[in-house]
């Protein structure tokens, strides 16, 4: 008789989700699904609100990367207030926003790698779940834990200096920014007392990469072989092909690296991308229109960005990018565990960018806001830590928001996460009647590679833990386990 396994809740990811695994009579995997079971409705309740409220309101989608939503909304509203489509701001406006964004990348990626993912690497996928967490890391490898905590703090301090608060600030406003960087904050972030200074952050970013390289050498089975499936990749790239997380054109490549979306203007994203609804998840499935629902899906996030970009414009990260490219023979990496590698390269890139910006005099003085001819519709895109984030607004004659469409990073990764879960489940659970804790965590490790923000993806309420249920062919529950 067939069976169904449910993993619920999924832990050490942000949001709330569950996995169901259907087994056939022979105990083989018939189907695996990652369900996102929350609903929030931000797109609906911003309707009727004054448009300039959107960047402050919609960032409440998330407490981990609110800056992404804050800036994506502000970019969409730049279009509405006639401040250009992403590159029309004053130097101060654009650079302050960029600094905020790099600060956020730094803290969010750090949180993901050190707090959420590293426990699996340090203690093993089937390690003792009581140790497999950030406290376990602190006890085992104090230095690594301290680095994780202090790097996150540094990123948060950059956000405070640019947005006014570490979480849910108000820095970006339509057409620019509401403040300069203070001399005091500049000095603090550049040359603060150990370890809060940019030199230490660059050192530690490199040390984290060394840690990863060392781990990779000894654990190719996990980093290279654990999950491996062909995917297309989508991200913003700068017009010249450089990695750019704040602004650029939309590019997608196939699993071999061939361009399938040719550096298009994102104001018309809806010409190229659509979303499919499936009955069993609140999260939609985006796809490239030209290719269709079946094979038009793509991955976003750190790995996608390094797979689409031609180069990185900071020297230390470029060196690591070259190593990464060489390892994958110049082609896209189709190994989702390489997300961690790409994430660490981006941490280094963000640190280098912050150094560059903190030394830029435009942050200390200059015009903050620019406005031009008003229009009634705007699209704002940027690369959030977890991938490409779309904000699209229409307003009415009375300055109220009439329509909002948000396609968030994790939604873009819906299909690839399902593929990854399916592959790991097939590998770990085929023919098994009982779920072990290790098997369950293996499925979570696959999800965690993408660093999903599930609450944000469905605009959902609540926290996130994962649960697995095993059901037979008649949907009778055979086994049910909740993650620790």
């Amino acid at each position, binding site marked *: 008789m067939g069976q169904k396994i449910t993993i619920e809740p999924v832990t050490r990811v942000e949001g709330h989700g569950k996995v169901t695994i259907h087994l056939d009579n022979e105990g083989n995997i018939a189907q695996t699904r990652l369900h996102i079971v929350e609903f929030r409705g931000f797109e609906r309740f911003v309707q009727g609100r004054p448009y*300039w409220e959107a960047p*402050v309101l919609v960032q409440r989608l998330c407490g981990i990367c609110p800056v992404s939503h804050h800036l994506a909304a502000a970019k969409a509203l730049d279009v509405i207030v006639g401040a250009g489509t992403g590159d029309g701001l004053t130097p101060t406006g654009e650079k302050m926003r960029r600094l905020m964004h790099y600060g956020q990348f730094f803290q969010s990626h750090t949180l993901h790698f050190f707090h959420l993912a590293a426990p699996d690497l340090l203690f093993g996928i089937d390690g003792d779940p009581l140790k497999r967490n950030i406290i376990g890391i602190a006890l085992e490898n104090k230095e690594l834990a301290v680095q994780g905590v202090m790097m996150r703090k540094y990123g948060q301090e950059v956000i405070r200096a640019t947005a*006014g608060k570490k979480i849910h*600030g*108000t820095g970006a406003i339509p057409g620019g920014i*509401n403040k300069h960087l203070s001399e005091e904050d500049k000095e603090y972030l550049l040359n603060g007392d150990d370890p809060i200074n940019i030199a230490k952050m660059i050192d530690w970013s490199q040390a984290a990469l060394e840690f990863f390289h060392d781990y990779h050498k000894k654990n190719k089975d996990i980093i290279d072989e654990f999950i491996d499936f062909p995917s297309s990749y989508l991200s913003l790239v700068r017009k010249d092909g450089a990695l750019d997380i704040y602004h650029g054109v939309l590019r997608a490549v196939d699993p071999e690296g061939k361009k399938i979306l040719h550096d298009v203007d994102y104001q018309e994203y809806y010409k190229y991308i659509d979303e499919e609804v499936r009955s069993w998840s609140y999260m939609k499935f985006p796809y490239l229109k030209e290719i269709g629902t079946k094979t038009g899906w793509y991955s976003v996030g750190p790995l996608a960005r390094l797979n689409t970009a031609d180069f990185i414009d900071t020297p230390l990260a470029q060196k690591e990018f070259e190593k990464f490219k060489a390892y994958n023979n110049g082609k896209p990496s189709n190994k989702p565990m390489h997300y961690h590698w790409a994430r660490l390269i981006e941490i280094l890139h963000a640190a280098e960018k912050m150094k560059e910006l903190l030394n830029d005099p435009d942050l200390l003085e200059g015009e903050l806001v620019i406005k031009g001819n008003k229009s009634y519709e705007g699209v704002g895109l940027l690369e959030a830590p977890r991938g490409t984030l779309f904000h699209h607004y229409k307003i009415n004659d009375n300055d109220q928001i009439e329509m909002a469409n948000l396609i968030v990073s994790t939604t873009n990764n819906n299909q690839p996460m399902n593929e990854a879960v399916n592959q790991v489940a097939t590998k770990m659970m085929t023919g098994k009647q009982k779920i072990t804790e290790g098997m369950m965590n293996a499925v979570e490790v696959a999800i965690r590679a993408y660093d999903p923000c599930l609450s944000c993806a469905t605009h959902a309420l609540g926290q996130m833990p994962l649960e697995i249920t095993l059901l037979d062919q008649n949907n009778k529950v055979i086994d049910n386990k909740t993650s620790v």
Partner: protein
Amino acid sequence: MDTIIRITIDGIECMASRGQYIVEAAKENGIYIPTLCNYPGVKPKGSCRICTVKVNGKLMTACTTPVSQGMQIENNTSELNELRKAIIELLLVEGNHFCPSCEKSGFCELQALAYRFKVMVPRFPYSFPLRKVDASHPKIIKDQNRCILCKRCIRAVKDDKGRSIFAYRRRSHRVEVGVDAKLGKLLTDELAQKAMDVCPVGSIIVKEKGFAVPIGERKYDNKPIGSDIENISVSKH
């Protein structure tokens, strides 16, 4: 007749001018009595009751009660502060006050009072009324979700003939403040800004300017409401 009289506030001997309202006399003596519907330069109304004090043992509103010789006033007592806190809490649950996305956050007197009186958790059930945002005026948005019906805008924002540009409409629990249908077009940029500044909450918003003051520089970011009064040196009569 002597114009200077003596009163006591919480046992402290104070000098006051005859005819002065209690809040003003207290202010001149460096004593803060919280207010919300009251606004300097505008005739007091006494509608919100936040300024309630005990005068010779009886509850009175300090913004509408003139001082008189020998008045004994109780102000900063736990009994009165508990009543004031309850009024703030009732105002917060009566409307739809979502500070996280409100551009008056940091300038809002209701929010500042809630911080000062340590409103930490909702004690009363939210009523979640269904109210509208009126954005039809070209210069301002009137968000009824946040209006506390204090009438400050009605009393303070007037055209050059002294006519109120804002007005009450409807009745009973449906009463609301709106822009007067005929006089609304007289709302200049200056008057629109004045209306926003006069509004103690975020119910009147000038269009297209939100969140221009960064966090840290907003009125109540660094010091609680009333601290300006408590810090002034006592005037000498």
